[in-house]
């Protein structure tokens, strides 16, 4: 059905895959000393986990954003609305505030990752599974709860930073921006396992996404258990965002950009293609952005600044051009 458009999209996706490969190769090899075996090995050791982390993050956020937008049936929502960013910020501030920057949770990347993921997982399950049921599966209530929770978490966080020791605050600040430098192979392995489990458990629900976007009435008419599917997908989206955020920090705003770029480029309703496109765009943006940050700005500006500035402008553009909002 409509095979020419389908083939065209596959070609576009292949081209993007090529770009990702190029960006990845450039990231690994630019500025590396090829003469000295030891320096080369050292550079590889530093860069490989970062590159893998970026690819995983892009995949998790890109996929989750497309799914989230399709559930809400609105293409300008970002999974930031789920409140995981501010929860992450709050967790890290609270750890430094109560246990100090020298504590195990603040120093050990694995422990911090585990704590983040555990707390976010619990909050996600309670809010987006239990409350969703309680509010009779009204997706707008869920958005509202997410927004309220976000500001609730940020208010506590702001209060804590006001009374915090300035030195502690200084050390805290660096962990509150998204960064790929704290990542080791254990975290990567664990994230991949969590994401794989989420995708495996939700594989049937994901296959229903195309029908879900026709709206509740049509989906039910076509025999889909709408409420259950939405609840499971929403929980899955939150977990994906939680994994990505626990791994690299508050970065889910990226989702808005890459999901919409994917929709604009592919112009399809097929979620397999949209998710893949969104993930590939995410990889290009993250790897390319990090390459520029490291090689041009020598770490002076973190990549999340680019994402926020670029994303903000793109968001305005979407608002102004999308007449159907």
């Amino acid at each position, binding site marked *: 059905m409509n095979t020419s458009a389908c083939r065209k999209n596959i070609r576009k996706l292949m081209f993007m895959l090529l770009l990702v490969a190029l960006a990845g190769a450039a990231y690994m090899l630019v500025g590396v000393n090829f003469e000295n075996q030891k320096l080369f090995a050292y550079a590889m050791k530093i860069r490989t986990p970062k590159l893998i982390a970026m690819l995983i993050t892009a995949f998790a956020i890109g996929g989750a954003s497309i799914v989230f937008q399709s559930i809400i049936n609105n293409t300008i929502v970002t999974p930031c609305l789920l409140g995981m960013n501010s929860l992450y910020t709050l967790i890290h501030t609270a750890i430094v505030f109560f246990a100090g920057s020298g504590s195990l949770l603040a120093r050990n990347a694995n422990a911090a990752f585990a704590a983040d993921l555990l707390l976010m997982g619990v909050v996600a399950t309670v809010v987006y599974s239990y409350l969703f049921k309680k509010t009779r599966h009204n997706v707008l209530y869920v958005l509202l709860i997410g927004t309220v929770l976000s500001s609730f978490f940020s208010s506590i966080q702001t209060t804590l930073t006001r009374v915090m020791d300035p030195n502690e605050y200084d050390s805290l600040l660096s962990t509150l921006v998204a960064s790929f430098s704290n990542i080791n192979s254990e975290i990567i392995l664990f994230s991949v396992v969590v994401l794989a489990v989420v995708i495996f458990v939700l594989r049937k629900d994901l296959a229903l996404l195309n029908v879900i*976007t026709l709206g509740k009435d049509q989906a039910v008419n076509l025999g889909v258990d709408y409420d259950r599917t939405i609840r499971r997908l929403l929980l899955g989206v939150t977990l994906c965002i939680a994994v990505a955020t626990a791994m690299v920090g508050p970065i889910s705003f990226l989702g808005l950009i890459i999901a919409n770029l994917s929709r604009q480029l592919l112009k399809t*309703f097929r979620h397999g293609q949209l998710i893949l496109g969104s993930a590939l765009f995410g990889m290009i943006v993250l790897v390319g952005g990090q390459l520029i940050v490291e090689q041009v700005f020598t770490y002076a500006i973190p990549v999340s600044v680019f994402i926020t500035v670029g994303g903000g402008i793109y968001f305005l553009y979407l608002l102004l051009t999308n007449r159907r909002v």
Partner: protein
Amino acid sequence: MQIKNLTKKYDDKAVVDSVSFEIPKGKVISLIGPNGAGKSTVMGMISRLIAHDSGQVNFEGTDITKWKSKELSKRLAILTQSNNIQMKLTVRELVAFGRFPYSGGRITKEDQEIIDKAISYMELEEFQDRFIDELSGGQRQRACIAMVIAQDTEYVLLDEPTNNLDIYHATNMMKIVRRLCDELGKTVVLVLHEINYAAFYSDYICAFVDGKIAKFGTVEEVMTKENLSEIYKVDFEIMEIEGKPLSIYY
């Protein structure tokens, strides 16, 4: 399909109050009545879109809540007014969704033939590769009906299919409804505001007032001056055109 003592309450107010009637097979049945009489709610409940509080909807011998949703979707199709599709979807792709209950996301050769037939039945061939959001209201409505035809169900429920259509497109829509029944042998249940369409194109009329059935019967039985004045609380005159009772209200 039998409906027994069907009730729906919002808070304590019953919007549908103990409604019982039987939908005759292979006919066109119109649900009419003033705003807020509960017609659309009844339609929602007999199609499982809205859960009922008490009573029973008996569909082919089994209660509608006991049916597997997927099995039901091969026997009963509903088209509601809320059709704002945000996706970039072509007409053909929309119609193809009608085959979802049968083959999931994978369209077979047989499905393709059924989709082709549905598209040509609704005379949508020249639009089939256009995006839904580029079509006019009438064309979009026809595309939705084509999807229902592709769904190939015995029962078709349409919630205000003539809403937002001009006289030309609304009349065409009603002719299509008649053809669905006469040519394809489907049982069609409609919610209508325009009583003359109900009178001219349907076999039975079920009139609701305040969540209860005021009158249910053949067109001739329901379309009398007294009945209509009682239902709508305005004055009516009945005229006969082409053997059908049509109403004038003022």
